[in-house]
């Protein structure tokens, strides 16, 4: 049923992006497997808690900008492709709260599943390392009144600790292409921690 709904609402660009996404995932998994065999490459799966704001209707005229809080959880597997250069896949589940009622309208609460393959670079620092990731994928949003998949691009930057429970803290920005919303931006902070697997982490990345 869910997949039927997804299919009905998918735009042609969404279908192409979904295909690209699946291809990226397969490529990522293949690369990850290959990298796992190479003991010098880092492979990890992190969990992340996140929170931030979605900026809805940034360009609207009748319906002006509303900033709506959201929070979520992500799984972030990543693999070091070459020295300091990473492939990552953020699989996120988030919940956006209902907006305020100013202007006699509101955005209802909605859930979102995000699949964002990313490529990133790690820059060595002193106490911490600095990371930047850029990617694109799909946000599938669902609420009582609407279910649709929308293409998205995202970028995040942050710091990574060489050791400790918290692996990294990032600030992320994503743009969802959605004609109905005019524009749909998300800014979030998220902290990651190692989940199932963390091997060959390079503490000597300098």
């Amino acid at each position, binding site marked *: 049923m869910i997949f039927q709904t997804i299919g009905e609402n998918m735009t042609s660009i969404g279908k192409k992006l979904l295909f690209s996404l699946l291809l990226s995932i397969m490529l990522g998994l293949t690369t990850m497997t290959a990298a796992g065999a190479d003991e010098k490459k880092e492979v990890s799966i992190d969990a992340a808690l996140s929170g931030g704001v979605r900026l809805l209707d940034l360009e609207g005229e*009748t319906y002006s900008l509303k*900033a709506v809080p959201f929070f979520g959880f992500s799984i972030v597997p990543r693999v070091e492709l070459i020295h300091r250069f990473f492939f990552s896949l953020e699989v996120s589940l988030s919940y956006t709260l209902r907006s*305020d009622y100013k202007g006699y*309208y509101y955005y*209802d609460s909605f859930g979102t599943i995000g699949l964002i393959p990313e490529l990133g670079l790690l820059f060595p620092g002193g106490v911490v390392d600095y990371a930047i990731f850029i990617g694109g994928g799909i946000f599938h949003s669902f609420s009582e009144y609407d279910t649709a998949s929308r293409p998205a691009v995202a970028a995040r930057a*942050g710091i990574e600790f060489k050791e400790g429970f918290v692996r990294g803290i990032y600030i992320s920005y994503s743009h969802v292409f959605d004609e109905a*919303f005019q524009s749909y931006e998300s800014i979030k902070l998220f902290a990651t921690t190692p989940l199932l697997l963390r091997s060959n982490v390079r503490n000597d990345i300098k």
Partner: protein
Amino acid sequence: MIKILTFLCAALLFLAGCSLLGTGDGTAFHALIVGIDMYIDDNVPDLKWCVSDANGMRQALLQHGWKDEEITLLLNGEATKDRILSEVQSIAERCGAGDYILIYYSGHGTYISDSGGDESDGSDEAIVPVDFDFDNISTLLLDDELGTAVSRCRTEKGVFIFDSCNSGGFIASSLAEGSGMRSRYIDTAGTRGTGSSGDLDIVNIPVLAASGEDEDSFEYDNLQHGAFTYFLIDGLSDLTADKNADGYISIRELFHYAEIQTEYYTIHYQHPQLRFSREFLDILITR
């Protein structure tokens, strides 16, 4: 870096929290409510509860914070084609980008073969003004004309509500006789067609229609209203339709309440329709 992230975190929380709950922001409200029971042309069967519908909707809006001066009420002889169009144009021109527009109509509805070729279904929907001439279909108020009048409107906020037959269909004529049910559909020589669809696509304002494209809308003596309007008013009274219990009734909430009740009451002869082009968005109808 930690300080910067802490600052960003605080900024995000501030941004998220700065929109405190509240509704007012200087939005201006404009409503046009039309109800027609008594038609001039003897060939058009009179209705019984459309004026009651219009008065009931007005009262329901007043009960929920609308002001009398924001509502224009046209009943029976006042609701000529020219007057309705003039009022719609007047509202459209007055409306600012963030203003709120509500247009409600209760009366006969019909459709005619599309002459402009702009309708995918080959039909123009129409409402029937009080001065409709049975032998002259140009006296109908077509959806195209209504759409053109409203197209000057800068706002997308508001709702159009039609409690009339939006389409052909010859169902329930036997039921309509002697059962307290009257169809709000009239059939003229020009109404033969293939059906109808929502044709106010020229504007993005949500539209609530009392019945499906192949259905009539009915009024009932025991309700003293059209079925759909009765449940709209019922949903507004005492916040009955306030599904999420936030103290306000939205257009989607009101529609879904009236939809379920109308379908149940009419034994599924009538299936109300909602067109709402914006995902996740909902518009309040109470203030």
